[in-house]
């Protein structure tokens, strides 16, 4: 299942990461500006902002993890599995030919197994998101 959902999740994770970095950077820049208004050098203002903010990368990763759980792509996948299951049931009920009813059974089995796999993997949608370590650490905008 990772073959299907993995690439989408990786793209989504990157997009979420960029959005969260933008949000955190906005906060850090305003904090730095706030400190620099107290007539302290810019680099000291940045350091003070980072101290008040906390561990930026840890916070970013935590936010990405939470936001990924929530993503519509994964919810859509679950709905799709539901749709496959219902289709299977309909094919099984209304199919007259033996081979057609077998297709219905197959669809139902695929939907149930996929859903069970999602469940076994920890029930959370974020389970399918692998940690990325390739992103650059968040930096303050010096300009």
């Amino acid at each position, binding site marked *: 299942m990772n073959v299907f959902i993995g690439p989408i999740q990786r793209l989504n994770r990157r997009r979420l990461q960029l959005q969260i970095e933008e949000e955190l950077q906005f906060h850090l820049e305003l904090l730095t500006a706030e400190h620099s208004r107290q007539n302290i050098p810019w680099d000291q203002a940045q350091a003070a902002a980072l101290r008040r*903010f906390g561990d930026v990368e840890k916070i970013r990763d935590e936010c990405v993890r*939470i*936001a990924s759980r929530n993503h519509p792509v994964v919810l859509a996948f679950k709905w799709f599995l539901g749709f496959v299951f219902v289709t299977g049931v309909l094919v099984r009920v209304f199919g007259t030919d033996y081979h057609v009813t077998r297709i219905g059974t197959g669809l139902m089995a695929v939907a149930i197994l996929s859903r069970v796999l999602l469940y076994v993997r920890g029930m959370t949608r974020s389970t399918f998101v692998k940690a990325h370590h390739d992103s650059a650490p968040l930096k303050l905008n010096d300009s």
Partner: protein
Amino acid sequence: MAKVRTDLMQGTLELLILKTLSRDQMHGYGIAQRIHEAVDDLLKVEDGSLYPALYRMEERGWIASEWGVSDNNRRAKFYRLTKAGRKRLEGERANWERVSQAIGRILETA
């Protein structure tokens, strides 16, 4: 007299955020500023700790967010309270009052 800064009790950050957003929609920095002003540095709140809380609260449907433009013309993510969040705020507030009243009684009598 020097102020003693106390660590925030678990779960109270969400209550502070809900209360802060009950007035107006705000970005993360605005929420942090409002909380710092309100607690007057008596409570130790790291600004960054707001964000995981905000994302969790959004996941639970208590707040909603959208990107907008801030006062300094920058793109910023604004959070607002949802109907469920408002209900949650009332519940949390009542719960907080009950707990603080109970602890107060114990401290007075024990």
